[in-house]
């Protein structure tokens, strides 16, 4: 095409001299308005609240914020939140891997129903989830009564908080892994089996490397929600200061006592943890887009 000489500029029609706009593009003005709407909307709805958290935490200077976080009760809340996440997230990761393995590597009856059951916690309110845990394991229930009699209380104690957290984060890892493992199929594992590898070795050396980024992605989402869960934990924890008050619960208690700086300082710490999670997640999405389900989920 390039060897056809163009007519001199003076002979070209005026319209062609303007920038070419494909018929599948919007007018530049429309484009600008849409971009501005998106930026303004996200700024007002999402970025302004985020900025408020840090502004309120630092309202009386950084010293006051740090001091409020070094309170022993604050420490116990931070420790408890990390402990709950450290128990609930690995358990959910094990569940997610097992469920994805069973669902994607085998054909069995009722598979669709099983997937629906795994997704169930998404459509249950966290408060209702907490209520369910209280009704199952509370001191008045059959199971809970027996456990309390044997010195192992669940509700208003650590196991209850872990269970409530696991309930609300239950589908996260499985949902990330299932689409990725469906796409990768079974051929590589079958080849490894033919070559005489044991089942465990196939999983460790063939499947795991293939799904590691999707697994990390699911674990990150699960962890972010686990550390921030409020509704379900509020119901099962009993909100005992220094014992069963997680970081979100402590934020509520401080806020209701009008200790604004202390509440927002702890909120800022949680928000910071959330931002770190978001940064790792975004990096994963850019680097390993080919292996993540998030881009294809609908």
């Amino acid at each position, binding site marked *: 095409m390039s060897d056809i000489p163009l007519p001199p500029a003076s002979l070209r029609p005026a319209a062609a001299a303007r920038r070419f706009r494909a*018929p*599948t593009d919007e007018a530049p003005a429309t484009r600008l308005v*849409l*971009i501005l*709407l998106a*930026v303004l*909307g996200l700024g007002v*709805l999402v*970025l*302004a*609240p*985020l900025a*408020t*958290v840090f502004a*309120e935490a630092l309202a009386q200077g950084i010293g006051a914020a740090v001091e409020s976080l070094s309170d022993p009760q604050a420490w116990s809340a931070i420790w408890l939140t990390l402990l709950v996440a450290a128990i609930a997230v690995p*358990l959910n990761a094990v*569940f997610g891997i*097992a*469920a994805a393995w*069973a669902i994607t*590597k085998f*054909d*069995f009856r009722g598979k669709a129903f*099983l997937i629906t*059951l795994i997704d169930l916690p*998404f459509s*249950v*309110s*966290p*408060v*209702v989830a907490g*209520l*369910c845990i*209280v*009704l199952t394991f509370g001191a*008045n229930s059959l199971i809970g009564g027996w456990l309390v009699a044997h010195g192992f209380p669940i509700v208003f104690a650590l196991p209850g908080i872990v269970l409530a957290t696991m*309930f609300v984060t*239950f589908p996260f890892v499985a949902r990330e892994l299932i689409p990725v493992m469906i796409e990768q199929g079974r051929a590589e594992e079958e080849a490894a*089996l033919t070559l005489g590898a044991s*089942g465990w070795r*196939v999983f460790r050396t063939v499947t795991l490397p293939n799904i590691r980024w999707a697994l990390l992605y699911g674990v990150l989402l699960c962890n*972010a929600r686990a550390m*921030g869960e*409020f*509704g379900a934990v*509020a119901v099962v924890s009993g909100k005992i200061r220094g014992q069963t008050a997680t970081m*979100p*619960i402590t*934020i*509520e208690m401080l806020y209701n006592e009008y200790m604004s700086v202390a*509440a927002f300082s702890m*909120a800022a710490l*949680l*928000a910071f943890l*959330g*931002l770190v999670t*978001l940064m790792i997640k*975004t990096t994963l999405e850019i680097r390993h887009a080919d292996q993540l389900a998030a*881009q294809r989920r*609908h």
Partner: protein
Amino acid sequence: MMRRPFVQQSPMPGFGLAMGITMTMLSVVVLLPIGALLLKGADFGLANIWATVNRERVWKALWLSFRLSFMAALFNLVFGVLLAWVLARYRFPGRRLLDAAVDLPFALPTAVAGIALTALYAPNGVFGSVLADAGVKVAYTRWGILVALVFVGLPFVTRTVQPVIEEIDREVEEASATLGASRLHTLRHVILPMLTPAALTGFALALARAVGEYGSVIFIAGNIPLVTEIAPLLIVIQLEEYNYDAAAAIGIAMLLISFAMLLAINLIQIWSRRRIGYV
């Protein structure tokens, strides 16, 4: 005729172990607790459940929760599709940052969002003071609840629609333009139908999230009975009075309405997918 076996033969190992872990954890964490709620309801009796739910305070709270959740999800549907379009189609400085910011509501814990929104929209807050001058009150009113519900549901529609837009074949739009359709006509009759199933999925997720939302709402709502009291809060109030029967009754009512709504949306989705022949 031979009965079809439960699981088809496969050379792959570990079905028993994987299925065992899956079913055990699913039962202990999800099924047993939900079963306990339903059992409690059955024990309490249908008549008693109805008597508990059929009070003005409960009806008002349920109606408020579902109505505001619907409005918030509707707003997120429109804004979410716009956002997805801008992020998928346009290239401009700061796009990556904007893309990451969409996920902020997932990353920020609800209690954090709740106190931040309250501080922002309270009469002495940055937005609240401006709005107060205009005679609009947001914090401690229904508008405040709506703001919180919009916040928590914001990413869903964008995240489901964005990959679909990225996969649309430009040739479809070019064909439409070649045949003389205006850009608006193409968007309305060619692009929009392709986005509908994904947008509805996002809408359903945002709606389900908003209906059950508790943490971000209770701070900004003011929690005035009959006016700004949401349904999940009623459950918490009953639990604080150790009234487990009433809490279970309201919990069951919420579960039933949520499932009915999700079922309706699923049916609409199946219909819209079939209509455009897209699986």
